[in-house]
């Protein structure tokens, strides 16, 4: 039993709470905070190997409605995997199942397994809250917490979850996360101001900083640029290129150029007709998917013949 194994490890080696702290501490070492550092912080952390996410025979449902059928795919560590496909083909649903957000929708259910470095995130005894801690998410609409300052937004994950954390440590993590999200220079003088006062692109980068502040292993992005203008979009794409040095990234996008520009691997989802479940057509290196896909469907889609 997976859960059994998890509990054994937990019981023999660690106390609750400390493990998560440790994860963060190792992170801090990986990316030391130095005011004078002119190098982008992401580069400094390039040594880190993130974790692999593997979907095995994943079927997703909303009540009786079968939304996604039998997906098998591997989201490789320290790479960007783009999920593309026409509207309603289940790519966002699939993405949300990776960190167990799918089950928050009333009536939603999951069959199959999703493994994070071999551990089933749907295993018995695994807390969905813990899964989300390890697999962070950035949403379509930038959604900073409207009641909080920029600083508090970034520190939100720490404040909500960790026990006591030293102010200096917190400051360091906030700064590192904001630098990692290429936002530090723009906001360092107004950390106390509300996050909702930033521009759309800045807000989205703030959300990315918020997600990375809790040191997840994987970052899921659900059309992170769809609400942004082209300039802000490019900035986020650059950022994604940096972030993959530290995290495993899966990104849903409607924008084919974005998939081509920003991803290493591309997975194409499709559905036969409306009302039928969506499924994974093929996954492969982005280069291949866009130039010589194996399936006709994929070729039609990427060449803009339908969808």
């Amino acid at each position, binding site marked *: 039993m997976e859960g059994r194994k998890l509990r054994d490890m937990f019981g023999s080696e660690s106390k609750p709470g400390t493990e998560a702290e440790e994860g963060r501490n190792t992170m801090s070492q990986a990316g030391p905070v130095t005011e004078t550092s002119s190098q982008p912080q992401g580069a400094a952390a390039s040594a880190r190997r993130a974790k692999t996410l593997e979907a095995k025979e994943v079927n997703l449902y909303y009540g009786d409605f079968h939304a996604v059928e039998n997906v098998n795919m591997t989201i490789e560590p320290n790479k960007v995997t783009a999920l593309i496909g026409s509207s309603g083909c289940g790519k966002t649903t699939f993405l949300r199942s990776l960190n167990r957000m799918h089950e928050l929708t009333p009536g939603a259910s999951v069959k199959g397994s999703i493994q994070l470095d071999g551990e089933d995130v749907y295993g018995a005894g695994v807390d969905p809250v813990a*899964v989300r801690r390890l697999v962070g*998410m950035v949403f379509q*609409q930038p959604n900073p917490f*409207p*009641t909080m300052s920029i600083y508090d937004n970034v520190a939100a*994950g720490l404040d*909500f*979850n960790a026990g006591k954390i030293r102010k200096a440590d917190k400051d360091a993590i906030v700064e590192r996360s904001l630098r990692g999200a290429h936002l530090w220079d723009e906001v360092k003088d107004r950390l106390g101001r509300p996050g909702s006062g930033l521009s759309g692109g800045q807000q989205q980068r703030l959300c990315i900083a918020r997600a990375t502040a809790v040191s997840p292993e994987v970052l899921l992005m659900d059309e992170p640029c769809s609400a942004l203008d082209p300039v802000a979009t490019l900035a986020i794409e650059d950022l994604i290129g940096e972030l993959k040095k530290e995290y495993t990234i899966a990104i849903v996008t409607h924008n084919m150029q974005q998939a081509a520009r920003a991803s290493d691997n591309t997975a194409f989802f499709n559905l036969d007709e409306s009302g039928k479940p969506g499924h994974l057509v093929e996954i492969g290196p982005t280069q291949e998917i866009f130039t010589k896909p194996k399936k006709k469907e994929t070729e039609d889609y990427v060449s803009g013949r339908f969808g």
Partner: protein
Amino acid sequence: MTPPPADAAVLSTGSTRALLAGEGHRGGTLPGWAPWAAFAGALAVCGLLEAALGWFTIALMLVFGAPVAILAIYAWSRPVEGARRAKDRAVTMAIVAAFGVSMAPLISLLYEVIKRGVAGISWEFFTSDARGVVGGGGAAHAIVGTLVITACAAAISVPIGIMAAIYMNEYGRGPLRRALTFFVDVMTGIPSIVAGLFAYALFELFFGPGIRMGIMGSIALSVLMIPIVIRAAEEVLKIVPQHLREASYALGTPKWKTIVKVVLPTAFAGLVTGVMIATARIIGETAPLLVTTGVVDSLNANPFQGRMQNLAVYAYNEYRSPGVMKQASYDRAWAAALTLIAIVMILNVIARLVYRRYKTEIR
């Protein structure tokens, strides 16, 4: 939809001005002051006519004047602007007149309360009670009682109401949720006197007949206040966008912390406003307190012992059993009314200002 008039073809050959003015339009337009003139004229004619018949009162002049004004504007507009425009004018005037009729008593009420209330307001009114004073004294005991009773009611209702709203909005599913929605509706409809009887019956069971205590009043008021708090809280919790909860969950935050740290702060201004408005609604209740807290002349700030006066009951009593100097008693009744209205208005205004100033901007 109204079909185009049969003579549309004829009109289409008419002047551009008539066309621009619309179908069925005769091309003319009444001057902007026409409705006012029609109204004033109608009132004057009716007033004179009634005076001639010897029935004149302001009320009758308005009662007859309004319909006459409506007819007048219709008769005036029809030949100039056409039937449809004339009807529009007539209905508009009717609506405005009805609005005026509705506002008149409310304005009169505010005016009278202020005018008569000021006469009874004095330093003594706020600082002394009425113990052993024949036909005099103040309302300090009633003011204190009002505050104590209302504070206790709020202390009971707010936590229960907000937690129940959290249950309904964040946790509730299935039969309990449905039952709750339904019964909160039912509870909103409980007449205040019935709430008072409930509190009395409850305490009579334990303390015997004739029991009167401040806390009994608070419980009666809670029955009235809880559904208001739930409704208001539910409303503001509902507008906290789902994506904020999801953002919090995606950080690995447990549900209860998401509620405490994200949902409630986002809804905070709305919750405060809702609670203040709910408080304003119950602070002036009379009937349930008449049967639970009783009537008393001296100051009592202990809700668990003995009778307790409150402002609304005080006003009622000063009116119902005036002392030897009738007018002084009435003045005090009005002064209590004015004080109450002031409290209610201040609560309402502050509530709205709080909301305007502190509400979370959600895009």
